[in-house]
């Protein structure tokens, strides 16, 4: 019987491009690597059971979960017991910091973090400082115009009494700039403070960071489904107040869903096999976007031109709102993101752009998918570069600011 209830049928949500083709330039959250997609579908039948159950289906799920963890651990160069799988990257990041702080609760509660960290770091830390009526509980270390943390201030902040945890990303997912992890880690180590490194933007696309005590990733960055990866280096003092010892080495209270873990591991194997070649391809494509954007009048390309993620680029154009640019590009078949907050319900613009002191309006962010996800990526980027200047000019003219 036909039903008028739309139910949960998912139709194509996209605006068709004039030539009917969509060009995905916003890969911060997917889509899945095609092989990982197949794995996910197959795992729905093979790995649906609760891995804690003792029956055959449960044992199968347990074996698949163990295998997934081994693949991810091996890729990161760590041991499986150091790896816990959490529902999402941001969940894992917040937990990573909580665990270091809780373990050191007799020494203090102060967090040091760069001003461009993920909001899963900054929002809870600010809230905690506000609740305790002690703004010193969080030191937000400023960054330069490229988004790189100021190491002198970082070292000074670590020296303040009561500091128990430091957080720094390997690279920023909005602007691509890499952080000086080696020096930042050495400074933290000199004060006996564990460093939590957020690698959510780069794992699978860029080299695996080496300098950390606790590492956090998100399988989305390597073409997997949303899955948080929390790695606590052996010997690092880490404890979570809500731990259940039998789940994920006591670092969460929720067992991961095995099909998701398996798809994440498959995506890792696929992506890591081609990381070097993919990196070279996307780096040169990002270079082309940077050049095209720099050629648009009154436009600034943001972030470090060289020491950066290979697949992320962002720029801002004067006198237009980012949302209008995203809309105009969407109509032509391009999916891009924006850190602007001119017309959206978010009142604050991207805290990353604001901390860098760069133009926050008129912002467009491109995150290139893995070439395996978008085989036509070269053509997509070439098309994007060609429409960029005319699109900005048209939006400016529609907004009546073409003469400025």
């Amino acid at each position, binding site marked *: 019987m036909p039903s008028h209830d739309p139910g949960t049928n998912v139709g194509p949500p996209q605006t068709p491009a004039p030539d009917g083709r969509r060009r995905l330039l916003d890969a911060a959250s997917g889509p899945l690597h095609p092989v990982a997609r197949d794995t996910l579908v197959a795992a729905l039948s093979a790995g649906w059971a609760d891995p804690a159950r003792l029956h055959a289906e449960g044992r199968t799920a347990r074996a698949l979960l163990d295998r997934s963890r081994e693949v991810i651990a091996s890729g990161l160069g760590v041991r499986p017991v150091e790896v816990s799988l959490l529902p999402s990257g941001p969940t894992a990041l917040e937990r990573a910091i909580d665990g270091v702080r809780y373990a050191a609760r007799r020494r203090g509660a102060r967090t040091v973090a760069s001003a461009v960290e993920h909001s899963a770091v900054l929002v809870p830390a600010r809230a905690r400082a506000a609740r305790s009526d002690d703004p010193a509980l969080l030191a937000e270390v400023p960054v330069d115009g490229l988004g790189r943390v100021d190491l002198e201030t970082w070292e000074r902040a670590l020296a303040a009494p009561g500091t128990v945890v430091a957080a720094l990303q390997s690279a920023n997912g909005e602007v691509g700039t890499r952080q000086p992890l080696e020096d930042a880690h050495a400074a933290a180590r000199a004060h006996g403070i564990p460093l939590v490194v957020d690698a959510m933007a780069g794992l699978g696309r860029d080299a695996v960071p080496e300098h950390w005590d606790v590492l956090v990733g998100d399988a989305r960055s390597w073409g997997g489904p949303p899955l948080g990866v929390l790695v606590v280096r052996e010997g690092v003092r880490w404890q979570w107040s809500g731990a259940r010892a039998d789940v994920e080495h006591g670092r969460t209270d929720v067992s991961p869903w095995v099909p998701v873990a398996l798809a994440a591991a498959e995506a890792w194997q696929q992506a890591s096999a081609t990381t070097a070649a993919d990196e070279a391809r996307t780096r040169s494509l990002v270079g082309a976007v940077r050049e095209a954007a720099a050629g648009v*009048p*009154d436009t*600034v390309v943001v972030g470090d031109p060289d020491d950066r993620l290979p697949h992320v680029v962002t720029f*801002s154009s*004067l*006198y*237009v*709102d980012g949302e209008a640019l995203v809309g105009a590009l969407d109509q032509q078949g391009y999916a891009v993101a924006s850190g*602007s*907050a*001119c*017309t959206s319900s978010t*009142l*604050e*613009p991207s805290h990353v*752009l*604001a901390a860098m*002191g*760069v*133009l*926050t*309006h*008129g912002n467009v962010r491109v995150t290139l998918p893995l070439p395996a996800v978008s085989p036509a990526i070269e053509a997509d980027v070439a098309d994007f570069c060609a429409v960029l200047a005319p699109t900005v000019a048209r939006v400016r003219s529609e907004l009546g*600011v073409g*003469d*400025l």
Partner: protein
Amino acid sequence: MSASPDEPLVVDARGERCPLPVIRLARLVRGLPPGEVPVTVRVLATDPAAASDVPAWCRMRGQRFVGAEAEADHTAYVVEVTPTGPAAER
């Protein structure tokens, strides 16, 4: 509005969202007669984006950002501009 050095020009963009404060600043500067003497402009804004965007506009257009002053319910961004006139822009 006159460009007397004693009385700074004011762009009142309170209550307006980005990019309007910067558009209104740029439009005011564009309408000034060309001159070599810097003119002080105060941009009054409540939009948090102005804190980044007004200094960024100065940097991108070769003008001088003097500073920000917190007022009761808004912020005043002080800019020193050297008007070049519409023809000489770009």
